[in-house]
């Protein structure tokens, strides 16, 4: 099941999503990290970040709301403490996050010289201070500047994780391709909220949060499919994947690799089960390689 995703060699197409897998070692009691294609670490900021006041999470129908707000140990602690704690042979993709473009560029530059980091994922879904709270990934011009700056600063494979909170994912995909990204990862969580009727308050202290989990999978599949039609860049599909069948849906829609996210919380072994399940699925369907599923969606012609 070996695959090259955006220039990053993976032993299989199953990764785990940023923010759902800590810094990797948290899952060592549950699975062999080397069974996965790799993992995307919690998004890093240059300095450590505390995150939002509680309540930070809430359950929604077949979904989860989160407003953690990027609590992380910061770049230094990641490089000096978290990475060395990982066993050999685990593929690590570092996720970069900032409130300003130059912070992203600085992270890209510094992480590019860290030997254990195999690739960079740009978290383009965070409110942008200069644009008054708009996500980087929501404005094509801002996104272009962001990707351009990261491309210049990075000497590792560069993957842009796209926000679904946009009118045209194809437009955002094209921007990334034009600015030299090596790959795309989509989708990130969808902006959402819920309220408590008894208290008349939002369930999240931050009011707004990101929706993830099985409920968003049809939206994610739609966006992966649309992006795959728009660009030649390899795509990593994310959104409510809990089983091998879910993963296969994303491959059919054009994804070369996938990330398991929210499912990790319910079942820490979910990603490993998806790996094994994909191998079994490929065998069942008589495929030599699971990659034969990529983009193999068949669309019947419209009735005449």
């Amino acid at each position: 099941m070996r695959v090259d995703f955006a220039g990053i060699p993976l032993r299989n197409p199953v990764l785990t999503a940023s923010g759902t897998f800590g810094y990797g070692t948290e899952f060592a009691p549950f699975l062999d990290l080397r069974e996965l294609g790799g993992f995307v670490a919690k998004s890093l900021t240059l300095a450590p970040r505390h995150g939002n006041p509680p309540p930070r999470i809430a359950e929604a129908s077949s979904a989860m709301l989160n407003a953690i707000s990027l609590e992380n140990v910061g770049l230094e602690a990641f490089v000096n403490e978290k990475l060395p704690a990982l066993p050999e042979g685990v593929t690590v993709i570092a996720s970069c996050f900032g409130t300003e473009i130059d912070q992203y560029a600085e992270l890209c530059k510094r992480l590019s010289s860290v030997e254990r980091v195999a690739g960079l994922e740009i978290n383009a879904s965070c409110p942008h201070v200069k644009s008054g709270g708009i996500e980087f990934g929501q404005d094509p011009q801002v996104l272009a500047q962001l990707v351009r700056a990261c491309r210049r600063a990075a000497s590792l494979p560069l993957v842009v994780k796209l926000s679904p909170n946009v009118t045209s994912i194809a437009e955002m995909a094209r921007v990334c391709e034009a600015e030299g990204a090596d790959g795309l990862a989509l989708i990130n969580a969808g902006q959402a909220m819920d309220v408590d009727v008894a208290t008349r308050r939002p369930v999240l202290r931050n009011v707004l949060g990101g929706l993830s989990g099985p409920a968003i999978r049809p939206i994610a599949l739609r966006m992966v499919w649309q992006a795959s039609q728009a660009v030649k860049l390899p795509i990593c599909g994310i959104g409510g994947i809990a089983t091998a069948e879910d993963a296969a849906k994303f491959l059919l829609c054009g994804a070369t690799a996938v990330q398991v996210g929210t499912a990790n919380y319910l079942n820490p072994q979910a990603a490993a089960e998806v790996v094994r399940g994909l191998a079994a699925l490929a065998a069942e369907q008589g495929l030599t390689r699971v990659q034969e599923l990529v983009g193999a969606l068949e669309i019947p012609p419209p009735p005449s």
Partner: protein
Amino acid sequence: MACGFGVCLGCAAPLAAGGYALVCRDGPVFEASQIAWEGLP
């Protein structure tokens, strides 16, 4: 809490000293004086 094993960072308890502890990993019992009670929902 969502995960219960210290990964989702959802069960944050605000600390008097600043920052957050995780109820699942660092608690669930804390010294009362450690907690910033006004920061709890």
